[in-house]
């Protein structure tokens, strides 16, 4: 595959470079990875770039080693998908994903997408249900790692106490970004590298 698959045109490459936080190598690598995810008949450059023809279904994207173990993998794909059913990723979606998760992306854009990833019901705020689901994903599904209901309640209460600045019971984007801005490790840990 190697040489034949990574032949993106120069203009396209530089455009991708301008529009994302990725470097040339990263884009080429992303393209290579993406093509490998496509079914064999459409594994060529032209097809891989046309969003209509080649979308990789989410299940396939989730088999990537970078995402496989991630507890938020389905959310990540959902947030970045431009398909109407949010069930597949085109190459550009894939680049967007990598761009946000790259080293160079600004904390602002990272926290914006983190918020959308954590907003499980897509309603624009993190409410108690979202937080509960978030904590459940963080602690894992196994019996011994689960929090008891009372612990969960207390935790959510604490989170809201710390983050919900206007005390309305939910965390909105700006509050979330505020919390994140005080957690410098966020930028370095919100990162997926191919």
């Amino acid at each position, binding site marked *: 595959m190697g040489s034949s698959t990574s032949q993106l045109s120069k203009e396209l490459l530089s455009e991708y470079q301008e529009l994302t936080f990725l*470097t040339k190598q990263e884009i080429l690598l992303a393209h290579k990875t993406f093509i490998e995810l496509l079914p064999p008949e459409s594994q060529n450059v032209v097809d891989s770039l046309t969003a209509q023809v080649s979308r990789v279904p989410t299940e396939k994207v989730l088999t990537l080693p970078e995402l496989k173990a991630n*507890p938020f993998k389905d959310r990540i794909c959902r947030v970045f998908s431009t398909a109407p059913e949010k069930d597949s990723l085109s190459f550009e979606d894939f680049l967007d994903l990598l761009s946000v998760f790259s080293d160079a992306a600004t904390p602002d*854009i990272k926290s914006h997408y983190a918020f959308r990833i954590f907003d499980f019901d897509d309603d624009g705020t993190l409410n108690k249900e979202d*937080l509960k689901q978030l904590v459940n994903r963080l602690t894992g599904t196994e019996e011994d790692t689960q929090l008891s209901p009372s612990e969960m309640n207390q935790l959510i209460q604490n989170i809201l106490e710390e983050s919900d600045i206007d005390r309305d019971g939910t965390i909105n984007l700006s509050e979330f970004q505020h919390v994140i801005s005080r957690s410098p*490790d966020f930028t*370095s840990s919100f990162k997926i590298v191919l």
Partner: protein
Amino acid sequence: MTSFYRNQGYEEDPDYPDFPNSRANLGSQNSPSYSYSRKNVDNRKSQDNAKHSNTHNYPDYPNDMNSPDYSGDQDYPDNLRFRNHQEYPGSYPNMNFSRSQNTPDYLHPRDSSHHSRSRRNPDSLDFPVTPDHSGAKDYGNFRESPDYHVGSNASSSNPKNYPDRLNSLGISDYRGVGSRNNPDFLRTRNNQSYPESLGISDYQGAEDNLVSPDNGGSAYYQGSQNNHGYSFAENPEMDRGFSPRLRNRALQRDPSFHHPHDRTSGSPGRRNQDYPESFQMTTRQPMSPYIQHPGPDPDGGYRNRAYEDESRLDGAYGNQYLGREDTGETVNYVGGKRNWFDEDLTLLYAAEKTKQEERLVVSLINLTSRDANKIIREQPLTMQEKRKIKENVNLEKQRSIRFSVQLNCCTKCLSTIFLHFRRFRGTVSEFFQSMQVWQRTLKIIGGKFGTSVLSYFSFLTWLLKFNILSFIVNFSFITIPQLMESKPNNLSFNSLELLTGAGYFQQTVLYYGFYTNSTIMRKGISSSYNMQLAYIFTIGLYLVICFFCLLYSMACSFRNNFINPHIYSRGTAKVVFSWDFTITNEKAVKLKQRNLTTEIKETLSEIRHENVIAPLKQRMNHLGIHLGAWIVSTGVAIACCVAVYYLSFYNLKFLTDHKNQTATLLLPFIVCCINLFVPLFYSSFGLVEKFEIPRHQVFVIITRNIFLKISIIGILCYYWLNAVAISKKECWETLVGQDIYRLLMMNFVFTLFDSFCGEFLRRIIGTKLIKSLGVPEFDIARNVLELIYTQTLLWIGIFFSPLLPFIHMITLFIMFHIKKISLMMNCQPPSKAWRASQMMTLFIFLLFFPSFTGVLCVLAITVWRLKPSDNCGPFQGLPSIIHAIYGWIEILSSKPGYLWVVWIYRNLIGSVHFFFILTVIVLIITYLYWQIIEGRKIMIKLLHEQIINEGKDKVFLVEKLLKVQEAQKKPSPFSLSLERREVERESGTSLDRVAADVPERSRYFQRQNLELMEENYLNNDTREEISEEPSQALNLAMLARQQAEMET
């Protein structure tokens, strides 16, 4: 005249619900002289009696003056007419008004629905946003068709129709505030009322009219904008920052108002798209049709200009916000016909998007392409959208360039140079990226161990790069010239010398002693190379580079990682929100989840037990243990120092007696043993010494270790400077260099030993013998301190052995791989959340403060105080090293071409006064900044309180709205949730904008009075017979605002 008019317009405000926001924020609160509250009262009281004349409001219009009843106009202003007045004073007879006013019938409904009506009016103010601001035509139409006026007046004299129509106007506003599951109502309203009120024959005209009079609207806005001149003094930025947004919001609602209407008139699609775009133009953009067709609005330009800045600053935030708003809005008329909703939603959504994009495009046009790209890249949009924006920007740019003046030659040249430079830089950075051999390794480590362990390795690679730099500097400026001059080395080499650095190496470029003091001349080249100066300047330059590199990294690190640490309480949110996405290993994820659970549980139990104060005895016990631990650790450190001191002095004598090379390894061996085992001993304190906050433990361990290491280095430096340098030995600098070389090498060997045996054995013990110990964790703190220690040694040694960075480079490279292997085989990820970024900041600080500054002191003593050895090295024969500089200045002062160098040296570098003045200036600046920071702290505190207050208001309003909605027949949960969001958006939109939003809004929300509101609610209820539930909700909300305003 005009100014007075504006004032009047401003005062009218309170009646306009959409505005209240903007007005209130625009500073009415701030201005004590502002008197609209009085007017309000007036209005309310005098509505019944036709006496209530606002004639003083219209001093500009003699016509109005003549017709005292015109005042009525102010209430249902049909702002159309009102506005038209302004533009075309006297263009149509006021008689009409007076007529309608005089109709007693008319007065009746006015009484009852005054509140609602007056409040709704503003909606018509919103109309200004004209898609086809083909003002002239419409206006002409208006003027020339008396029919219309008659018709409308006729309708206005009809007591029933009028209020209806007003209601229909009001609804859009109502929707904006809250319940919007009432589209049917809306539509029917419009259907009924519109034709009636406006006259069927003129329907089209009326519609145009409704839509077009934006001049009035803008002038109105203008008025308020101008007006707050007097309130600006307090906080202009806030006012301005806030108002455009509100304006936008108000305008935003327009389309939804028009939509139902459009539907009935049978043109759904076209409008949908036209509207949003057009507003956008009028509201935000300086280059909108507004300017191109200034029309009858003389102030339009000014207004736009006023908003230009904000709109640009608004940037992404506005976009996002608007994008959301529109979904909420559209749902309003989801009513009976769902299919409309879907179609509409997509249409509107698309329209909104284009709108946002255009806004962005306009803001980007004036930037350079690089900045524009940067901003586009930072938008949370998909690739397609970003591409579209970029294309638009380019298009617009080309268009503007066509009209702009041709670039002159110089700029062209510059831009080409920049372009080439950028390309070159791109290529270079690509090259370096392809050189990144560790990228893969680092990713694997991150995937398995998370960011915390990764930070150790990135620190190591950072140091490695740093040493590569210093090696390049030293090699090219000191070693290469020396190599040209050097004599062949005739000493034999044996492998032990690799460790001791003596023997063969003594006669190489590795050490100071080998360098010549002569001036290197080449045959055929006239210029000469002064080794003395090269040596001192290269080392000096290197240290200066180091200083600034460290300072820069430290400042960056501090800026990023210590944002408002004082506000922080506990950090549960931080734990929850910062999942480490770098971890890709399945097992590691499981482990991380388990660790997180433990951590969360621990935090929770801490919170639970927080209030329980431990009994005195227990506390005393704890204190005793801490004290004991500190005494023991300090004692051990001092004992070690004493041991090293005596050993080193003994070593000096010992070495003169024994010529055996192995003997030289005794001192480094002992020092390394201390460095390896004492920290282990310190960490065993952890078994008895319990800390409430785990972070404290890390800090304490680091403090103890750094104290130990730095004091040992201090003792060694004392030994080198006070014993070796004075010992009259031949070439003492080389001896010191050898000592440091040995220490570094020995340290390296010990690190290997530690990795292979220590961690390996520990794992064997943990997994095979004592199962409870488990697999060891990678001790980040200890390892990083080790790196700092070696780096300190290297900096000291760089003067005595210029090629030491090369040696260190190799050892670091090997260490990287060894550590990696050991980590992969023996260790598990750390169980505690390690605040990696904060720790890195601390480490860089440690590298800077005791380490680098200490090195500077040592080197300063060497250069200024010590006498270099007589028979070797570049400075042989000089009383002290700095005399090389003095001599050079002497030589230069005799050469007329270099007098400026001499001047600089004498007046700046060598002058006490200059440094004194510099210090004073720096101190003053520091003090000022400190004061500014203090002020900001207070500001932050205030803003924080205000956000909380605002949140309370939000909750309160939401509750009220929910109550009203429950009272309705079919409460739809869908619209409820949307509303929730809407309100959310309205009040808590952005913390970023805190500075702009909060003070104004919360100030009046704060003063909301529940009782008053209830009272008004009831009043309204009884008085407003024809108004229905939705408008009650609106009224309620508006009354709340009004009440708050009145109180001020």
